[in-house]
Structure formats: C-alpha cells, structure tokens
C-alpha cells in the first residue's frame, strides 16, 4: 500500500512528494473546549502553518492529557471539524468515550496540546458534480460538516441527511443550513431514520437529479445502504472510515481494513490510504 490509491488523487498529496514536508506536529494552544451536549465536546485550538491546510475529511492525531483516572499513552485521531486560517484556528468535535477523550475534555483555554497533521486524504469533489448528498450519523457529522462549506465554495448544492437517536442529539444542523445545504433530520425515535425511509429519500433525490454523489460517515448501516443504492443507480460515493490507530502516518500498519478492488480484496491503511474511500470498494465493519 505504498502509493496512495486512486481515490481523488487531486485532493491528496501522494507520499512520493514527501520531500516537501506536508505534515507537522504542532503544539497548539487551547482557545476553548466546551460541552455541546451530554456526549460531545467542541475543541478550538490556535494553530498556524501546515495545520491550516487541513481539508474536509482529513484528521489530526491528538495528544490527550493525563488525568487522575486516565493516563492515555497513544494519540487519538480526530477529524478536522473546521479550519479558519484567517483566525489561525482549527476545531474538533469529539465524543467522550474513554481514556483519551476523557483527557481531552479536561483541556481548558490556555492549556496546550500537540496535534499531528493534517493526515489522510480527505474528501474529493469532482468538478463535474453539481449536487451531492451527505448522509451522516453521530460522530460522523463532525467529519462531514466541513464538506458543506467545501461544496458551497465550489457552487455545489448539498442535501444533508442527518441521523441521530433523538432530535436533541443531531448536531451541526445550523452549520449545514448556513452553508446553504438542504437539511433533512431523521431520528430513531420518530422512526424516520429507518433504512426504508432513508432509501425512499435517496431515490427521491436521485430522481429529482440532486444526487451526483454520496458522502457518508459514522454508520455502517447507512454506508451499506448508500453503497447498494449507489451501485443500483450508478452514483459514485465516498465514505470516511475509522480504525484503531497508532502512528497516523502509515508506519505501523495497525489501522488496516479490507477493501474490494479491481484486483480482488486488499488491505489498506485507513490513516494513509484513507480515511476516505470509494463507497464501491468499502466493506462492512
């Protein structure tokens, strides 16, 4: 897996160009780190240089502070939620799940932590596309949100189907709206998130010509659904995947997943060959 895969080669600097340093380990100052709901925190860091070049779908490998209870050792991969070069800020939206994110949640304005990145390939937008459909759930929304502005900048219309257990837990709705996206909120409690309904929504969008490509993250079920629908209607798509990581730089081979490829199944490193992969090649996780 030494050369980067076909996936949107435009967005992605091939490793071979490495002579020019394109990844940096930056000691970044915490501007704010606030809870957005019972489960999620929103972290804003002051950073400069390469960190500012991060694109939608790329991620950073973040050092998490030790606490009384936890001594996280490895870094934690987090998608870039927003980059504001003008303000020299990079933002993350993370769910508190274990030792590392519990540590992150203790960061206060004025503290600092090390972030390695930007890492991975990021989403790609084909110049030919006019309308895209973004389908996300849970943590996946953090990864997909910056895609809204990226598409808007290129005059691409976005329909965002945002899924969650309850309305209260859907995040980034306003962000998608502000970016000019059409937002559909679907939830488990009113049943609107169930596969048949989502499929109906997708087919509707396809028939009304508003689905040149699919983008998804955060739900295996949704990924499989989009893959099937995409295959049926010949709609290309991209999925951002997760896997446990150590280095984030393609060195350790911890983060492999299996993929379909023209020449049969193959292993790829999520950190280097991804985290964004062609929907058509992604396999259930």
């Amino acid at each position, binding site marked *: 897996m030494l050369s980067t895969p076909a996936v949107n080669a435009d967005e992605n600097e091939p490793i071979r160009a490495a002579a020019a340093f394109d990844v940096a380990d930056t000691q970044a100052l915490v501007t704010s780190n606030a809870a957005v709901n019972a489960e999620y925190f929103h972290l804003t860091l002051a950073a400069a240089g390469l960190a500012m070049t991060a694109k939608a779908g790329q991620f950073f490998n973040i050092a998490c502070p030790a606490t009384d209870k936890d001594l996280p050792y490895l870094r934690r991969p987090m998608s870039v939620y927003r980059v504001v070069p003008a303000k020299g800020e990079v933002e993350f939206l993370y769910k508190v799940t274990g030792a590392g994110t519990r540590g992150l949640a203790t960061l206060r304005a004025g503290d600092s932590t090390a972030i390695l990145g930007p890492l991975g390939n990021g989403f790609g937008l084909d110049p030919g596309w006019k309308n895209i459909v973004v389908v996300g759930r849970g943590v996946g929304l953090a990864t997909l949100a910056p895609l809204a502005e990226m598409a808007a900048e290129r005059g691409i219309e976005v329909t965002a189907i945002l899924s969650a257990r309850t309305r209260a837990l859907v995040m980034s709705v306003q962000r998608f709206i502000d970016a000019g996206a059409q937002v559909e909120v679907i939830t488990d409690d009113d049943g609107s998130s169930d596969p048949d309904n989502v499929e109906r929504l997708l087919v509707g969008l396809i028939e009304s010509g508003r689905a040149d490509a699919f983008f998804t993250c955060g739900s295996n079920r949704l990924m499989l659904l989009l893959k099937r629908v995409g295959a049926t209607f010949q709609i290309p798509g991209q999925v951002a995947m997760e896997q*446990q990581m*150590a280095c984030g730089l393609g060195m350790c081979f911890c983060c492999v997943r299996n993929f379909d490829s023209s020449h049969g199944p193959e292993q790829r490193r999520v950190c280097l060959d991804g985290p964004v992969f062609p929907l058509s090649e992604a396999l259930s996780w």
Partner: protein
Amino acid sequence: MVDLRVKIGRITLKNPVMPASGTFSEGLARVFSFDHLGAVVTKTITAELRGGNPTPRVAEVGQGMLNSIGIPSKGVLNFIDHIMPEYQRFSAPLVVSVSAPTAESFAEIVRQLNIPGIAAIEANISCPNIEEDGKAFAMRAKSTAAVVDQLRKATALPLWVKLTPNTGDVGVVARAAQDSGADALVVANTILAMSIDTETFRPRLGSIMGGYSGPAIKPIILRMVYQCAQIVDIPIIGCGGITTTEDAVEYLLAGATAVQVGTATFVRPNAMLDVVEGLTRFCERKNIDRVSELTGAVRDRGMHVDKLEALP
C-alpha cells in the same frame, strides 16, 4: 562541539539514533528529513507475500502498547523496486530488516539483498522458526547459532542480529549470535503480552497475544542490554521504550553503542530528532567530548548481586 559519531562494526554512524524496525516508514519523511538520523531501519520484509494479522492489531496498555501487526510483506522485489528508492535520497545508511520461517529461507532472502544501497542487514530472528515447533529462533542459543551461521555465509554485508526478550537467558543467545558471526546485536524485540476487554471478555488483539512495547518495557530491556554487554564484545544497539534523551543515555551507560526508537515515534513523531539534539546538550553539560564515551560507563564497580539473595 560534541562528537556524536559511533562505530557499529565497520560502519560509522553520524549519531547513535535510528528508528526501530516496523515503527518507521518513508511516511515520516513528511515530518522531517532522515538526513538527521544515524541510520534508517526498514520494516521487516520477507520473501513470501504476507497479509499480517487480523485486527484489532493494537491495544493501548498503560505507558505502552500491544501490537499484533505481524509482518505484512509484499516480498523482496517490491521492496527493491518501490521502497528502497524512497530511502536513497537520504544520506542516512539503509539497514534492511529481514525475516523468514527457516534458516535456509533466511539465507535466501539475504542473498537477494546483496545489492548496492544497503548498508547492513538486520536479521529479525524473533519470529517463529517453523522447523522448531514455531519457537522463535532467538529463544534458544542453538537455533540462533544455526540461523546466524547461515546468514553469515550468505552475505558480506554487516550483519545485525535482533534478539527477542522472550527468553530466560538472553546472554547465552547473544554469545551464540556473536560466535556465529554477527557484527552487532539489536536488543531487543517486543515482549509477548496480552490484554482482555473486561466488558466483552474478548482479547483486545485479534491474534490474542501480541508484542508489548513502549516506556513500560524499558527497565527489562535495559537489564538485558546490561547483561549482554557483560558477555559479548560486538556492539549492542539498545531498543526498548526509548522516548527521551535520558532513556538513550541510560542504554548507552548500560553498554549500548547506539539506540533504536520505536513506539515513542507514534506518540512524538519528532522523538528521534529530540534525542539527537538532546544527546549533544547532555554531553556538553557533562563535559563529554564523544558520545561514544558513554557506552558502558555505568558506575557499577564494587557493586554486586548477592547470589544468596533471592532475585526475581
């Protein structure tokens, strides 16, 4: 100006700091130039194609990690055609780590690597020897001697032999490697370990057991370097949990001539650079002209281990 150069057999390294096999790849060149390193060491390659182990392949445990990567390998030719060129643009000597399931196939792959551009061979003999019920070559002096002997005949390149810590007597294995022609020893590979998720009751690694690395193993590997240094005359390259300049110094004092940094690079990608710079500052502060003076400089004279006292 402190002289950081060290000699490993007949090659001289500009400084004693290099990556540990498998914790490093050309990808790190996106962060800094390998010209700053004493050497570069490749991920272990094998002759046959391998997929590596099932996921999860990593588990964080305390101040260290378990890995069960195994040795995914695309074979020797892929290495020569696609990976070697990546390293050629750097001045740091290229050390190629190799492995094989039998002594004969070990010699075979080394023969294929008798090509320009390779500074030394690092034989990872911590891998299972399928001719001896899967026990790693380096677990026993006999199988170590057998494989190193074949390797020595197969190559004129400097031969570094990497030992496993999963043995009761690393000293006799080290002596066997030296006596069979090793030019240097790398001490050591990961320690076989395990972790279980108490919520799911499942092992946290897809292959149940895996290799323990990182700061947590440093005191154990440091002890092995010290023990080996009492027994062999060839240079020892210390490898286990090195994260800071002080860690590197500790290994040199115990008898190492150079050090490899592994897991620390995952946590601090610039760790190797920091150690290189730190060694200069350390030597300046201690008025030491040559970093090589630190090798074996532990002040243990007059101290001894009372045989009658129980030691673990």
